[in-house]
């Protein structure tokens, strides 16, 4: 009994949210391609024995932006944390299934999670620069990785790649905490780039930013995808439609008897198709704003 939800649905339909070009070619799904950056098979996550994410299978391609959308609590963050083994840091979290990174299972027993994270960058919801200078923030990753080249150059290139150089080149020695929120988030992106990963994971990178800073991050992502695969979690469907090539829709399933809840991958594919001709009713309801 909420009169506003129907009206907001109508509004969304009127504004015709997804203005994404039609897919040029049919999307092949669930087919392991050697070019995939990630090949994820039957990925499940448990927190202290309770299942939180169930049987997700998905391929991530290079030089594309993949958006992960879905209602709050459906397991988007849980999913993205699996891709660089950040879930290892959560006591009681267990991961089953396979995450192949260029064909190598990052959950194989002989793989060191520290080494995984050195190849796969991550940007968080709240900008989290270290309480150090701008320069030392960028240099942190290269330094712990034993970088031997020209550090000044690497710092400059990373800041340029994150479209931040012009704004901070005169205050490299100043604390990063003096930057604005949007600048801090681009600094965090530059910091991730500086370890030269080929994937960047972003968990709602713009949700703590104002609209102008958000646009700058989205523009930056378009630049970055020429070089990196980007996976972005967002609960903002317009953002997913604006920035991504492909979209994966996660949704919460509920067991009626035990009232346990877990996230599943409902469908994924070309962003244009997900928003205009979704195969699943739940996707259709979600992208048209019929629920949360």
């Amino acid at each position, binding site marked *: 009994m909420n*009169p506003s939800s129907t009206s907001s649905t109508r509004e969304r339909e009127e504004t015709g949210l997804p203005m994404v070009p039609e897919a040029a070619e049919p999307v092949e799904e669930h087919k392991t391609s050697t070019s995939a950056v990630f090949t994820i098979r039957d990925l499940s996550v448990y927190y202290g024995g309770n299942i939180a994410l169930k049987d997700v299978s998905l391929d991530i391609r290079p030089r594309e932006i993949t958006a992960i959308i879905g209602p709050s609590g459906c397991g988007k963050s849980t999913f993205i944390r699996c891709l*660089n083994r*950040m879930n290892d*840091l959560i006591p009681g979290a267990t991961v089953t299934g396979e995450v192949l990174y260029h064909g190598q299972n990052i959950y194989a027993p002989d793989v060191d999670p*520290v*080494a995984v*994270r*050195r*190849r796969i*960058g*991550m940007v*968080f919801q*709240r900008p*989290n*620069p*270290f*309480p*150090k200078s701008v320069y030392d923030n960028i240099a*942190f*990753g290269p330094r*712990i*990785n034993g970088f031997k080249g020209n550090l000044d150059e690497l710092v400059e290139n990373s800041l340029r790649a994150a479209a931040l150089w012009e704004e901070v080149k005169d205050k490299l020695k100043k*604390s990063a905490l003096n930057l604005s929120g949007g600048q801090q988030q681009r600094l*965090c992106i530059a*910091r*991730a780039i500086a*370890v030269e990963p080929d994937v960047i994971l972003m968990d709602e990178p713009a949700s703590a930013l104002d609209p102008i800073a958000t646009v700058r991050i989205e523009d930056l992502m378009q630049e970055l995808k020429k070089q990196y695969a980007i996976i972005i979690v967002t609960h903002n469907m317009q953002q997913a439609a604006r920035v991504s090539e492909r979209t994966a829709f996660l949704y919460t399933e509920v067991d009626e008897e035990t009232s346990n809840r877990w996230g599943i991958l409902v469908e994924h594919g070309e962003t244009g198709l997900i928003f205009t001709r979704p195969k699943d009713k739940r996707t259709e309801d979600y992208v048209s704003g019929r629920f949360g």
Partner: protein
Amino acid sequence: MQSQAKPLGDIAGGIAPVPIENRKGVGRRADSLFSVVAALSGSLVLLILAFMVLSTTNTALPIFRAEGISFVTSSDWHPANGDYGILAFIYGTLVTSAIALVIAVPISLGIAIYLVEVAPRWIKGPITYLVDLLAAVPSVVYGLWGVFVLLPLFLQPAAELLSSVLGFIPIFAGPPSGLSYFGAGVVLAVMIVPIISALSREIIQTVPDDDRYAAYALGATRWEMIRGAVLPRGRAGIVGAVMLGLGRALGETIAVALLVGSATTINTSVVRPGYSMAAVIANQFQEASGDHIKALVAVGVVLFAITIIVNIGARLIVWRMAD
């Protein structure tokens, strides 16, 4: 929709505006009463402090006048002859405190980091409680434990070992004694470890997890994460914790008096007996009279000044680090 539309209509129709009236009554009076009480107690603290400084300085003034600068630059302390030079006590206070810090800071930080970053949850609680308990033990207990247990079991053998192995360095030259700067410094360290580690633990706990994740996501190991993310964020607070520990060490009386060896001369070797400012006051006050008493009060004034200087220095460091 109806209920939403109604008040809007009323406002549009021009409801009589309610004038803003100042609040009266108990709430208002409590407010102003509170600020008066706060201001009074604030100025009372300042008054007491000023009174302490003035009255002790006044008592000590004849000694300061008679001795001049040599009061703090000479180490001639012969009350019977009227010689009052306290350099040996200043030296002892600084040396015992420095030894205490050198030993206590790494141990305290180790405990704090272990408790927050490494220890499994079931260990955390008991150890935290134990450390807090140690902070509450009266210093005379530490002093007695130092003399009767630590001295024969550890301090004397350790002093002998130090001087036999490193004796060629003047600061470890023999003949070694457990009752020494070293002995007092070790017991001081035991006393300030609980303080420094408890405060550092709280500071490290306030470091946001976001910082930790940022470091881990760049491929940091746990140690790299601690060094790169946790310690920089907690640096100012940890320095503050160390300074509080130092303050306690500088002023500690009984434990040092029992262990420092009560030698009124300066010894370059830390395994030789010495004295400290607080210890000399405690030991000699009972038997002193006349100028001797005034000289001991003067020692107290200098100790107070040193403590203030250390505190201001600490503040400045913390401020510099905070930005």
